[in-house]
């Protein structure tokens, strides 16, 4: 076919220029693909963080309002334990009665970060318009401290706290909550029949670090729980260390010294559709004023740390850098194509004298530009894959901090508000997130479209010039 023969010969003649234009386009497109891949990786990391916190299918999460900060000098709530360190050493006081705790181990399973919500509210939430399902849960922290005998005395040793997180999962509805996001790697998950049993499913990382396996026993506030399953949560998340039946968590857990029987501190809600999530959020706020109602979207906006910075970097700087490089590449391609057309004026004038119509010559030039664009696009996709691979290989692990989320937190042994005097009550959990960039099909499609657009844009400038070219002028210019 003459069109292809002419196109091939012409590209071969100005091979160096064609390669230069293609490389320029490849650089721009490669950058777009890399940035898109990095953005996709960051978004995936964010999704993993959120998924591990809330579980699969959770659209809205309700958490009990955080306890009010304690004013210095005020009396501790009823039932709360406080430390007092005086000349005689340390004392633990509860309801006005104090004793020396030296040598004792204090172990509590506490809902320090959130105030409890009555379990009856879960059913009320489930009945709200737009709510597909709702399940309650308890996010608790088991903290044990062994008080040294000479604690509080000058030169005496400090107590060493030991804590792990426990999630009370509703065995009647295990499709919601953090456990739903995990994959059982050994043993089994909780069943509805486990409601009152002392059984636990342990996170794989915790199980590995504490050498736990199926059949092992873990102690939660002096109660023995049998490990029945090991669960692996998505990378990047910061899951609870173990999951126990909600009823057992309610029985042994406390909040500010009070039992959590018939209470939850978290409600996981699935909306009927994505469109109704804001309405559901508003309805729940009306029903539970004072409690924190969070959607995945609002939580994502609260994510801070290097993950958030990287997301901003990829979305803002990366996008604009890509756009600038692309504009530069398109401009260079267009200018070089116009220069090539200028050098071929005599050729095009001759073709017009032979009876070639402008659109036929234009098609020839557009075809050449398109081929250069497609070659640049293919090279750009290859560069994009390479860029994504380099990012995955060398990018440092990112961190994400989620204020107010139900991740692990450092909690004092005193429990409740009073405990804030001795130890930090709660901290925004920071989780490590591996950074990976993967090239998506959408990115490849975008690259191909950009390549075609770049080729057509460059060709159209040259074609515009050809269309305006009068054959006599073209021939006179070189005569």
């Amino acid at each position, binding site marked *: 076919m*003459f069109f292809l023969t002419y196109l091939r010969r012409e590209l071969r003649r100005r091979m160096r220029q064609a390669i230069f234009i293609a490389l320029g386009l490849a650089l721009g497109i490669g950058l777009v693909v890399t940035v898109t891949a990095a953005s996709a990786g960051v978004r995936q990391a964010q999704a993993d963080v959120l998924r591990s916190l809330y579980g699969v299918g959770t659209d809205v999460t309700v958490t009990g309002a955080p306890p009010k900060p304690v004013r210095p000098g005020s009396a501790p709530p009823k039932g709360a334990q406080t430390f007092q360190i005086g000349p005689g050493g340390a004392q633990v006081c509860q309801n006005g009665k104090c004793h020396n705790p030296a040598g004792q181990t204090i172990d509590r399973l506490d809902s320090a970060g959130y105030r409890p919500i009555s379990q009856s509210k879960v059913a009320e939430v489930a009945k709200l318009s737009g709510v597909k399902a709702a399940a309650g849960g308890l996010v608790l922290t088991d903290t044990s401290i062994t008080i040294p005998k000479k604690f509080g005395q000058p030169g005496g040793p400090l107590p060493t706290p030991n804590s792990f997180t426990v999630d009370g999962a509703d065995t009647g509805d295990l499709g919601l909550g953090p456990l739903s996001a995990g994959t059982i790697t050994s043993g089994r998950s909780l069943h509805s029949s486990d409601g009152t049993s002392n059984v636990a499913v342990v996170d794989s990382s915790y199980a590995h670090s504490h050498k736990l396996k199926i059949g092992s026993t873990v102690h939660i506030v002096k109660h023995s729980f049998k490990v029945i399953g090991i669960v692996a949560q998505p990378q990047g998340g910061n899951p609870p260390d173990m999951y126990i039946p909600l009823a057992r968590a309610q029985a042994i857990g406390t909040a500010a010294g009070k039992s959590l029987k018939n209470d939850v501190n978290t409600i996981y809600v699935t909306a009927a559709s994505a469109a109704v999530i804001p309405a559901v959020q508003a309805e729940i706020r009306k029903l539970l004023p004072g409690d924190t109602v969070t959607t995945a979207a609002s939580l994502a906006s609260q994510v801070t740390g290097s993950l958030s910075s990287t997301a901003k970097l990829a979305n803002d700087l990366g996008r604009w850098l890509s756009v600038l490089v692309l504009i530069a590449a398109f401009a260079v391609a267009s200018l070089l194509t116009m220069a090539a057309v200028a050098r071929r004026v005599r050729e095009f*004038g001759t073709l017009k004298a*032979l*009876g070639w119509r402008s659109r036929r010559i234009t098609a020839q030039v557009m075809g050449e530009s398109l081929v250069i664009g497609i070659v640049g696009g293919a090279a750009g996709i290859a560069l994009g894959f390479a860029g994504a691979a380099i990012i995955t290989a060398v990018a440092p692990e990112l961190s994400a901090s989620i204020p107010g989320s139900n991740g692990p937190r450092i909690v004092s042994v005193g429990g409740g508000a009073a405990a804030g005097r001795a130890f930090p009550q709660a901290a925004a959990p920071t989780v490590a997130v591996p950074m990976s960039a993967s090239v998506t099909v959408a990115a490849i499609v975008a690259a191909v479209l950009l390549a075609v657009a770049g080729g057509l844009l460059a060709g159209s400038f040259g074609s515009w010039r050809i269309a305006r070219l009068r054959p006599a002028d073209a021939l006179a210019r070189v005569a």
Partner: protein
Amino acid sequence: MYQLTDVTKLYATGKRTVPAVRDLSLAIGDGEWLAIQGRTGHGKSTLLNLLGMLDRPTSGTIEFDGRNLTRMREARASRLRAESIGFVFQTFNLVPTLSAAENVEAALIPLRAGAAERRRRVEAALESVALADRARHLPGEMSGGQQQRVAIARALVKEPKVLLADEPTGNLDEDTRDEIINLLEKLWRERGLTLVLVTHDTAIARRAGRVGVMSKGLLTIQAGTRPTHAGDPVTG
């Protein structure tokens, strides 16, 4: 074939207007060989461009086989050029990336002839200029004379009615010049072409049926010395 009436072509150069062709009236008969002489810049090539519809007159009319070219749309003019008018240029104007055969084939592309038909006609055209053995050579691999013969084959492959040659021997040595002119004369005779040839060379001009001299845009027709190959009377 051609009827030019009061044709004027003006060029604007800055604020000045330069007349390249002035009030030219001329009839060119079928099968005639008209040679046009004149000094550089006196309007020879402009006249050739007007005859080939590569340019439009500022005023006056040009008729080709009874059709008014001055009002013809560009698409139709392209079609007419593709079907009826062949060009030969002083600098050959071959596409440097295409072989001799492909350069000749380029003239058949606007005619939308099939690939087999194109191949057959290209072979015949190259045969007619004795370059069948150079079909695959690029212009850069051929001498000036050979390149001009390829250009002639390109002009004639579509079997045009008119051949417009703008100093076809201007870039050739003396021997090659004679070779090319002999070839053009042979083809003119054999194919019944109308040949309009611009040349500085008086010896070549003398071989034409009529000679016109362009001076400052005005054409003066000298007395005809030879009849057309068809024996038709020449008007001027």
